[in-house]
């Protein structure tokens, strides 16, 4: 069974990248779809990013160098759109829709994030785009999915965090529920979309059959509630917020130069006690796993006292030395300067003509089979001529007309 797809490899030469020669149409704005498209591009895909004529709204979110807003230097946009080509299209015009259909005919993968029903309402849904191409993989990424009573309800990171059950679990038990930082609902959905597309594209390659995927941000996030969800479901027990400390050996503590933490399971205790070195940790009330949680408050008091005498780097080194799960709350300054991460080629380090010197995550994993592209993001409409004139064969005067009609 497992031999069926290795008997006839397609090529034996330079390994290249997994998505070399694969065209992706990205009809997605913001974070989720572009995040998925970014990694497809880094793995070799020709990602043609279709932007509205005013640009992906993420161009209007910062950060910007020196806080000067500029469509071409938004840090969020530059991060999420490396190695893509930008074509502007106004899908409210028939010319814009026709060009999109022509582009879709050359694409293997389509990523879209319009409000449910929008593309189908413009005869650009999966049925239309795949009518001559049954191997097309298309994914729709929306807050609540394509169906159900909330399908067309607008959402934000905060409301999705609440709707997934994640927010209930986060924050101090005596304070309101807390949102974690950044745009995690959108980012995690983008990562799920990348996994979904990769699996579906493999299926399409093997079976010449594409698929249409409906991805809901709420659902992918709700699926991460781990023990809390299954315990509620199997035993009817509600979970409580636990703040920074699930128990004395699982959480965040203040240290002398910031914050650090420990996450020790029962099997990590002997190593932990040895690394910390306090004699009372060898007493049965702490060392015996059956008694430890009964004496949690006392253990926590000891831990507060011990951690405040540590430094962040000291904790990290102690963890490495003793193979104990210690860590520290790293800042983006720490991370950007990390020899460990730099040595592992984690960062794209570029000197951007307009945005200056930039250091940001440039890959997901290290592979013995391929490398990652870490190129720049396109300017708005930078590839209009190259794609619409050069590849689709429209004349230059057509481009002028399309511009006048507000189609590009």
């Amino acid at each position, binding site marked *: *069974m*497992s031999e069926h797809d*290795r008997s006839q490899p397609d090529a034996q030469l330079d390994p290249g*990248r*997994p998505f070399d020669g694969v065209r992706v149409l990205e009809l997605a704005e913001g974070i989720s779809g572009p995040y998925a498209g970014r990694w497809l591009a880094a793995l070799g895909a020709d990602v043609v990013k279709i932007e509205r004529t005013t640009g992906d709204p993420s161009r209007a*979110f910062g*950060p910007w*160098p020196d*806080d000067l807003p500029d469509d071409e230097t938004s840090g969020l946009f530059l*991060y999420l759109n490396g190695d893509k080509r930008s074509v502007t299209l106004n899908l409210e015009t028939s010319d814009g829709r026709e060009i999109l259909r022509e582009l879709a005919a050359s694409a293997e993968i389509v990523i879209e994030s319009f409000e449910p029903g929008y593309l189908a309402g413009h005869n650009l849904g999966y049925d239309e785009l795949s009518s001559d191409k049954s191997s097309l993989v298309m*994914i729709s990424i929306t807050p609540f999915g394509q*169906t159900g*009573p*909330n399908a067309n309800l607008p959402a*934000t990171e905060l409301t999705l965090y*609440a*709707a997934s*059950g994640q*927010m209930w*679990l986060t*924050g101090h038990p005596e304070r309101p529920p*807390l949102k974690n*930082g*950044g745009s995690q609902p959108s*980012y995690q959905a983008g990562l799920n979309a*990348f*996994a979904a597309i990769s*699996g579906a594209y*493999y*299926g399409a*390659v*093997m079976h010449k*059959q594409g*698929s249409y995927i*409906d*991805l*809901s941000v709420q*659902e992918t996030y709700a699926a991460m*509630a781990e023990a809390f969800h299954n315990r509620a479901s199997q035993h009817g027990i509600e979970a409580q917020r*636990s*703040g920074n400390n699930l128990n004395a050996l*699982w959480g*965040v503590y203040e240290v002398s130069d910031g*914050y650090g*933490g420990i996450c020790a399971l029962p099997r990590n205790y002997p190593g932990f006690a040895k690394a910390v070195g306090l004699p009372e940790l060898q007493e049965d009330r702490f060392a015996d796993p*059956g008694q430890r*949680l009964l004496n949690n408050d006392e253990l926590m008091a000891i831990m507060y006292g011990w951690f405040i005498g540590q430094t962040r780097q000291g904790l990290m080194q102690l*963890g*490495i030395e003793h193979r104990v*799960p210690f*860590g520290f709350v*790293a800042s*983006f300054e720490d*991370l*950007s300067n990390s020899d460990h991460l730099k040595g592992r080629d*984690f960062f794209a380090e570029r000197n951007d003509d307009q945005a200056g010197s930039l*250091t940001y*995550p440039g890959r997901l994993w*290290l592979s013995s*089979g391929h490398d990652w592209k870490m190129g720049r993001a396109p300017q708005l409409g930078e590839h209009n001529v190259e794609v619409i004139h050069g590849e689709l064969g429209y004349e230059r005067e057509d481009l002028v007309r399309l511009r006048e009609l507000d189609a590009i």
Partner: protein
Amino acid sequence: MFDPGRPLTGIRVADLTMIWAGPYAAKILADQGAEVIKIESPRAWDNIRTLLPPPVAPGEHWWNTNFYLHEYSRNKKSLSLDLGSDEGKAIFAKLLTHCDVVIENYRTDVMDNLGLTYEWLREQKEDIIVVGMAGFGKTGPEKDAVGYGPIIEMTSGMTSTSGYGDDGVPYKSGISYGDPIAGICAAAAVATALIQRKRTGQGQYIDLAQREVMSTLLGEFYMDWSMNQRLPDHMGTGHDWMAPHNVYPCAGDDDWIAICVRTDREWEGLKRAMGSPDWAERTEFSDQILRWEHRSELDELVGKWTAAMKKTDVFAALHAERVPSSPVWKMLEVLRDPHLKSRGFYEPLRHPEVGIWSVHGWLWRVDGAGPCILAPAPDFGQHNAEILGDLLGLSDQEQSALETAGIIASRPEGVLLASEMPTTPSML
């Protein structure tokens, strides 16, 4: 017939993962149709089976029925095999010739210590795809650091972005967020490696550091550091330009609703939902910038409206006006969310010793896919005979000898019987 929800049908995975991140990856592979063989030693078995004892009298085989195990291991097969013994390793070598993928999330040095290096794995199966998911990767000065989800969160920059803002304290997520994130990414890595194998005929080694994957979800913060040498402020549940943007108390026990207003149109919707109170017409709330400047007062006034109502009623009023909002669903409530219910997100899981309960189904919906849940987590060693006998051709006598020698087992060694279980508090 091709099930579009199961594009990995025909792929066999040797799953050496334990606890969270790795099993989450293998769950996604199994849901997608791969034959995932969860391999555990009779002695070094997956701790997730017993980490959280059940809150009721444990069933006889509670290591097979535990809710935590089932969160991660539906649709998988179970093989018990001691990879530390020569005989176990020889069987594993044989099994590898039938496998496409090996996935593990051990500490960095464990595979090498067991002699299961990439070179050795490739000797058994030349085009094998190997995914190692050590927290900090397989190379570099921090490779020997170890960590579960919250450590991954802290060391990735994630925790530094979260907090109430008034006390300077960084907060971790409520879940071990680093784990599912690494798991999803590893599932993607396997699919891309399969695509690459189809193109080139070659397998590959994937060194996936959990902390690095988490850090890719924070791109804008890296950019702000590069561009402005600025670190993020803790925003609590607020926002840097939206107001109202917060969680508001509702009638009930620790009940809350999240409400966000991004535009004047949504502000008009909120006003109508609130019954058009006079205070909402005040000049200081008349545009977005003013509302943001007066957000404390605005939050207080909106909170007075919500506090008298059930969160589901507040949500119904805001839903009708298309204002971004959601009740802060508790765990028992999200299971009953009418929207998720209408989409069939939760599917029944049946186990002969437990009965029926509901678990999340497809992470994403593929048109024309069959049902997501085909089987509960396997019993420990449930598929020993199928894999060792049917697949590898070992006779019944050979299998019995392996069991006698402790190379395979039908029960994890050292596990407490239900009758021996002490009554101690759970770590949750």
